[in-house]
């Protein structure tokens, strides 16, 4: 039986490129990703070490039209692995790229920015609704009377800070990238 192992690793909403690089590094050292069962839990299978490029796409329209979406990638030499929380995972051996071909599922920055926009709408907007409807009002309520429920109060303060950090980090990343590509 093939040897398997699970590693725990956290990537934030904006770190999908780092996640792809991590999967590449694992494959280079002889561990091929086979599944992600829970956020942060990566299951690998022992394999021959190989330089394989991994990429994540976030395209719900593609996910809704799975067959033609996957076919487009397959035609270009990308193997579809699985979906996890709306992200689609693809891989292609580094040796299969030809000439000047970029080792990416995107060939221009405009489409990279489009993906960031799709993530903002699909991932951050729902988070923002939770933030505006639950975290923010609770934060104010608990803050005004912290001595009554100190644990609950601290939890909401922590949540408030966490949400602010998530929005801020993503916002900064989005606007620096937008500025960099001159859009």
């Amino acid at each position, binding site marked *: 039986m093939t040897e398997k192992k699970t590693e725990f690793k956290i990537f934030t909403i904006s770190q999908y490129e780092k996640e792809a690089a991590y999967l590449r590094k694992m494959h280079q050292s002889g561990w091929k990703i086979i599944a992600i069962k829970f956020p942060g839990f990566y299951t690998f299978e022992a394999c021959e070490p190989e330089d394989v490029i991994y*990429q994540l*796409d976030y*395209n719900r*329209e*593609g996910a809704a039209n799975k*067959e*033609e*979406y996957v*076919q*487009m*990638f397959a*035609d*270009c030499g*990308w193997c579809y692995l699985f979906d996890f929380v709306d992200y689609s995972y693809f891989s292609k051996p580094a040796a299969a790229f*030809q*000439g*000047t*071909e*970029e080792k*990416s*599922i*995107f*060939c*221009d920055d*405009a*489409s990279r920015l*489009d*993906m960031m926009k799709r993530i903002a709408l699909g991932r951050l907007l729902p988070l923002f609704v939770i933030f505006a409807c639950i975290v923010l009002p609770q934060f104010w309520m608990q803050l005004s009377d912290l001595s009554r429920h100190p644990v609950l109060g601290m939890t909401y303060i922590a949540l408030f800070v966490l949400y602010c950090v998530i929005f801020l980090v993503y916002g900064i990343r989005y606007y620096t990238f937008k500025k960099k590509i001159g859009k």
Partner: protein
Amino acid sequence: MDAHIKKVYVPMTETGFYILLCLRQPSHGYGIVQQVRKMTNEEIVLAPGTMYGSLSKMEKDGLIRCIAEEEKRKIYQITDLGTEVLELELKRIERLYQNAREALS
């Protein structure tokens, strides 16, 4: 043509331009990738994430339309609006080229 289309597509990305150029004849996404490779001597290799995003965006905006489906591949063709956008972009590139030529001669 409304202002939104003009703002989004003029000027347009190289990928967008080649998609419209190729879709004067019906083709699917990978067909466009192959045509562009040939036209540019393998210098431009369009990537599937970019292609899928551009094709669905252009279809939604009415620049191209799906006319058939063959073996899980959508066949697209340019619309009148798409042709109009392509011509507008072509004029912009021509002016760019002419101005550069004159300046450098």
